[in-house]
């Protein structure tokens, strides 16, 4: 019975098992996704070229064993048990899990299995496909993890770029306006000191006047650039911060897996909604979570690299607290972390927290950071509860 399905991993060695075996097996090998087939008892009968490439040397050992996916031994979810249970119940299944590729990299996979039934309903076996949905280093022609997540990612990176430019221009304008003020005031003070003394060459006054005029010209340019870079107006709408947390953590699922870390959500029930710009608030949370993950990078991978996202409310304010178990805030310069261009990361621009603070302040909220009693830091964002007269 199972021989009708038993696609041989080496079709050339046994060309007779399917009437059109060679072309089909070649076709399966050519497929851009990982495919497998197993018998009614779950024993693996076939794996295609892609799957063999993923597993590497161990591919042969898959055969004759029961298909329990390419589960990484460290990863508890889904369990081997879940595979066997689904197969026993003749159910279709779709499991998401991570597995180590032959080069040692952790990948996020989706494994879909379909029962293959005979005309009388008896189970012949399973055919299944495994898709690598890791967002990391995904090239454009590979399938996206989910269309929505991809859309959100694009949207966020656009908003991030725009607010980055806005913040950058604002900081630059501020820094440049100081010397421009000094130059202008000095030139005008000098003109006053010269007064109408006749022994002063006329051109000296002209020079000072030119300095003052050019200074004002520079000031006008900065003002215009700032106006140009003014952020888009807010797209205000009621926002459920619990949903925001879920959306952002789904977006980061593969990042978290690759980094061998975990995000735990502790969401308060019946959380009041806030009134704000969803994308901008997502951007803040994304930034806080990524910072938390970065902070845990140097920590030993002993299962403690866990980030907790907690929501809560006192009826007036809604809070999201992001607690990491990382290196913690810099001991001395803790008050500077929200300032533009301040970063503790070697590759950091120092804009993330500065933008986050701007966004929250514009929402009538605030952001604060503190070191945890044990290890790591907690960042807390706070927003006012949506009032009734806000639509």
């Amino acid at each position, binding site marked *: 019975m199972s021989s009708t399905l038993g696609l041989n991993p080496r079709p050339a060695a046994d060309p007779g098992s399917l009437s059109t075996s060679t072309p089909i097996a070649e076709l399966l090998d050519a497929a851009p996704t990982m495919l497998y087939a197993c018998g009614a008892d779950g024993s693996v009968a076939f794996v295609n070229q892609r799957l063999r490439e993923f597993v590497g040397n161990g591919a042969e050992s898959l055969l004759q064993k029961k298909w329990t996916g390419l589960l990484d031994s460290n990863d508890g979810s889904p369990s081997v048990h879940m595979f066997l249970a689904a197969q026993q119940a003749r159910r279709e299944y779709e499991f998401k899990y991570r597995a180590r590729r032959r080069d040692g990299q952790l990948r996020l996979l989706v494994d879909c299995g379909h029962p293959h039934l005979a005309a009388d309903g008896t189970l012949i076996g399973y055919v299944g496909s495994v898709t690598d949905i890791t967002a990391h280093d995904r090239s454009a022609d590979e399938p996206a993890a989910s269309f929505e997540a991809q859309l959100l990612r694009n949207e966020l990176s656009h908003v991030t770029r725009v607010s980055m430019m806005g913040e950058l221009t604002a900081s630059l304008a501020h820094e440049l306006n100081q010397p421009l003020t000094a130059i*202008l005031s000095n030139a005008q003070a000098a003109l006053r000191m010269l007064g109408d003394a006749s022994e002063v060459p006329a051109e000296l006054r002209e020079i000072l006047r030119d300095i003052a005029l050019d200074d004002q010209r520079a000031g006008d340019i900065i003002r215009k650039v700032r106006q140009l870079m003014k952020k888009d107006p807010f797209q205000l709408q009621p926002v459920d911060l619990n949903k925001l947390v879920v959306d952002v953590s789904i977006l980061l699922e593969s990042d978290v897996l690759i980094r061998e870390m975990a995000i735990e959500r502790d969401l308060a029930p019946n959380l009041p909604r806030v009134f704000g710009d969803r994308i901008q608030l997502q951007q803040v949370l994304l930034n806080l979570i990524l910072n938390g993950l970065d902070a845990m990078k140097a920590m030993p991978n002993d299962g403690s690299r866990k980030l907790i996202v907690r929501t809560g409310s006192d009826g007036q304010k809604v809070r999201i607290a992001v607690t990491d178990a990382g290196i913690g805030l810099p001991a001395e310069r803790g008050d500077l972390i929200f300032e533009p261009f301040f970063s503790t990361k070697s590759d950091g621009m120092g804009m993330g927290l500065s933008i986050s603070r701007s966004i929250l302040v514009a929402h009538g909220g605030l952001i604060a950071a503190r070191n945890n009693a044990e290890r790591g830091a907690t960042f807390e964002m706070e927003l006012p509860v949506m009032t009734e007269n806000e639509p």
Partner: protein
Amino acid sequence: VNADESIIFVVDDDPSVRKSLGRLLRTAGYAAETFACVRDFLGREHHDGPGCLVLDVCLPGISGLDAVADLAQARYYLPKVFITGHADVPTSVRAMKSGAVDFLSKPFREDELLGAVRAALEKEQQERGARAELQQICERVKSLTLREQEVLEYVVAGQLNKQIAAALGVAEKTIKVHRARVMQKMQAATFADLVRMAGKAGIPSERYQRDRLGDGR
């Protein structure tokens, strides 16, 4: 007020800015002192004379805006001209609401700064006049005897001599004498004058108004 006693205090954390603003103000004929932060300014000997503050909005430590309360606590009533290199609408609204005379975006021209300083000094002079008048009124009120103060409260609350006499349990003639002494000591030419001065000093006090209502029932 002697204009020569006026001092313009510039508080800005940027050394070049405060140096140049100090120069500009001095060449325009003002006495100017510069400070890097509000704390430094408060560390200076208290200036009771006329003047004004030119304050940067974004200062390290306490910002110029948050310093308004600290300045009031240190009994500084000097008008403020805010300057900023980072003007945004919410900040400028907050600054103007806090009682600022003006809000200038850096870089500003000398006529903008000098105009704002002139307006601040005028405002200071007016407020100083009002404060002096109030102080004078309070001193006159203090010079009244306790009974005269009581009569003043009743009088400005609109009570007739007869009613006051009844309330205080004395003869109406006595009230008339007290009343004349009150007018004299308060240097009030008319009854309206007395009411105006008393109003500035917070008389009739709430306590007396409450008692009066109690009598009315």
